[in-house]
């Protein structure tokens, strides 16, 4: 049952979430992508049309189903190298490496969008998206000028005692830089994030904003609310704790924009309260 497609636009599939985001942002619905249930919960946007087939877990993509979706091109990423011998049997594979230890991921993400745009005949859309992204960052940067004095630490709570931190080679770190905010975590991280770090490490950055990125483990915030140490942290005492909505930490440009937007909204509302 081959679906009618435009000649310029081959049937694409992807096994990577950052590619999925990028495709959707360019207005292309891939025939198949992995773990859509979690994607809708964690990455949230762009919305995934119901025509996209769910390929199962990212770690164990259902190759049979992918084959039956009859893609003509499969986008992969450096995380799925070990799947590529299987993927190439289904359709030609193109791989992107956005997340490499020690390298900031923003430029590679933009390059990926350009490359996908060129390959699928959406070059102008890709350029427009990148320009829009830059413009949005410039705008947000202006609005955030009053906040630039303080650094920000984006974290994932592991439990009530530990967190995962995102460093300079993470997308969150990149966005902070582009928004003119300093990342309060200056130590090295590998593969974007470092965990587990004890909560007490937050005492070393008393001046920082804390950006809390979901998922928050059940009960963790309740335990923290009753913790003397947590409440003694200057950031917490002064209400510099931002609870953001869910964002994919290993995303592409759309995730970067989502983080920038949510962060700005949270900072501005926080100021409104104070």
């Amino acid at each position, binding site marked *: 049952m081959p679906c009618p497609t435009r000649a310029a636009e081959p049937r694409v599939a992807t096994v990577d979430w950052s590619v999925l985001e990028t495709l959707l942002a360019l207005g292309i619905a891939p025939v198949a992508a992995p773990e859509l249930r979690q994607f809708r919960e964690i990455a949230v946007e762009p919305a995934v049309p119901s025509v996209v087939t769910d390929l199962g877990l990212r770690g164990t993509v259902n190759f049979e189903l992918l084959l039956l979706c009859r893609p003509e091109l499969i986008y992969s990423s450096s995380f799925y190298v070990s799947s590529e011998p*299987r993927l190439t049997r289904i359709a030609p594979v193109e791989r992107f490496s956005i997340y490499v230890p020690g390298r900031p991921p923003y430029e590679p993400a933009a390059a990926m969008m350009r490359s996908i745009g060129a390959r699928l005949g959406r070059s102008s859309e890709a350029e427009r998206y990148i320009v829009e992204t830059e413009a949005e960052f410039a705008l947000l940067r202006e609005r955030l000028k009053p906040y630039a004095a303080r650094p920000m630490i984006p974290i994932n709570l592991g439990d009530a*005692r*530990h967190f*995962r931190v995102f460093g300079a080679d993470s997308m969150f770190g990149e966005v902070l830089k582009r928004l003119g905010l300093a990342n309060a975590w200056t130590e090295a991280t590998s593969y974007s*994030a470092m965990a*587990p770090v004890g909560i*007490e490490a937050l005492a070393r950055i008393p001046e920082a904003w804390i950006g809390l990125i*979901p998922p928050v483990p059940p009960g963790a915030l309740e335990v923290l609310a009753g913790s003397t140490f947590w409440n003694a*942290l200057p950031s917490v005492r002064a209400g510099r704790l931002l609870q953001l909505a869910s964002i994919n930490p290993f995303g592409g440009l759309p995730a970067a924009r989502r983080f920038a937007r949510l962060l700005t909204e949270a900072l501005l509302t926080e100021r409104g309260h104070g």
Partner: protein
Amino acid sequence: MAEAVLPMRRQFHHQTAIWLAAIFAAAALFAAVVMTRPSLTDPAELARMLESALLWHSLVPRSVTALICGAALGLAGLLLQRVLRNPIADASTLGVVSGAQLALTIATAFAPAAIAVSRDGVALAGAIGAVALVLGLSWRRGLEPLTVVLSGMVVALLAAAMSATVILAKGEYMLSLFIWGAGSLSQQSWDAALSLGPRLLLGWLAAGLLLRPLALLGLDDGTARSLGLALHSARIAVLGIAIWLAASVTAEVGVIGFVGLAAPALAREAGARTPHQLLLAAPVVGALLLSITDSAVQLLGSGLNDLAPTGAATALFGGPLLLWLMRRVPPTPPAQTVDAMAPTNRISRPLPALIALAAMIAIVGILGLVLGRGPQGWGLATGDLFTELLPFRGPRLVAAGAAGALLGAAGCLMQRLTANPLAGPEVLGVSAGGGVGLTLALILLPFSPFSMLAGITGGSLTVLLVMLALAARPGIGAQRLLLAGIAMGALCMALVSTALSRGDLRAYVLLTWLSGSTNRAGEIEVWIGLLGCLVLLAPLFLATRWLDLMPLGEATSRSLGLSIAGSRLTLATVAALATAVASLLIGPLSLIGLIAPHLARLAGFARSRDQLAASILTGCGVMIVADWLARLVAFPYQVPTGLFAALIGGPYLIWLLNRTGSRHA
């Protein structure tokens, strides 16, 4: 008289010196932690306030928590060892920890409300369930020490498989579960200390009240009963206290292995003899042990980050310690275990039966290739569709089947070698060693399928060589070799769980391997599997005489003119290599190596040659079915094959052991 007192007094002084040295070391290390904590460079006022908050709400409660947890685990270990008369009983070897972990994992993923209501309650329920299962498994065998620990191992593996399945399905809470699984002691409040302290005191007082029964529990059942002791209620009370303490610690700070094992043993080494002395000494030793370990990981880390979670660090010394303690385990007479391995009803003509088995597997295999699910639902793949799907369904079927065959053979070999029906390749520690190799490869080498392969093979081989060196040592005996395998496995899994607690994408790769997915199997995996079968399994049939004689015990075999050391070394090498290849294909957690030989025996294949062939075929067949089901039950989401096999096999094994147990009771 005076001559006798003098050395005793000297010994007493010697022991006092050891105690003082240990206490001094713990105190000095804690002082070093306080001294070396990074100073804050902020406005002086703020910095002073924060530093005092850090000291009084993080460092001090952490060290107090370490002391309390260590004491509680030491006490729990002592009670368990006493009540089960088992020198290697401990909360981790009995499955308390894994049971609690599984319960907390399930609750975190599916019923967060239950965690919010009572974290401890959830953990305790899981712990009690696991211990009940372990004791139930070994009840018929009179709670014989090694059987208890091996049953604990099976239950722990099963619980780990189920936990990993849940974690894979609910990826968003992965980090919290991993941190907890590696057991970190870092604190920012007195909560843990305040909740565990009274429990420790209560448990300790209750244990003190049970001191007389506790002393008598060291005697055998007959003597204890004739002294008028309500044996069972005393046992259950002591057991209850121990499980409650261990489960509370596990719920509060996570998995901390081996302290319960080490503390009573070291207390005995330091001269504690009577129950009175031990009841005092074991908690103190446990407290010091955990405190020293915890200070060490803080000192060796950078800034405020620990080098490794404390729970993983305790396993680093716990594994070797278990090896050292082995010499205390009384060897079990092989005759008792051989009995349990006797076939139920022999098949008179094994060859036609084996052929029938092979034919059945062929039919199942073909069905697995043809029947599947697609976007339009269930369907039989024929013609073009079949040839299209074959490159995907074929390799994973072959990989799963080959891994099953290899594990079946490895299990059969190990059960014959050790004369123990609970021996299995997972027990050897070789598959876990592959995990350490993979971890190192992920850290050190560029990410590629070949570096993963090299890592797993390197790790498996290293552990294998260590095990062989141990096996070659005179007087180690088959049972101790098995224990060495458990210790090695625990050590390796602690290292893997440290890597998992980093929660990055490498952790995800490790988790995928742990779960044992055949999804990516391709030509390379097919060739590895087939070559492994050909090279490792075919020559085994030339060595069946060894296998026939092996379970008769060393004395009998030697009197029949069999070179024990040589044949055992050869068979152990084959078993370990087969395990390594299989773990590469389907991960380390499937229990197929344990189950296949039992199935073969139950079907009536008695002679070792027939049992070996039947084990190989059964392992192959069960894995093919497991793979097929794993592909289809949650379509398009796939359950990892290794996990699925463990989930099929584990409960079956438990049922099987109870059945055989009752027959021989």
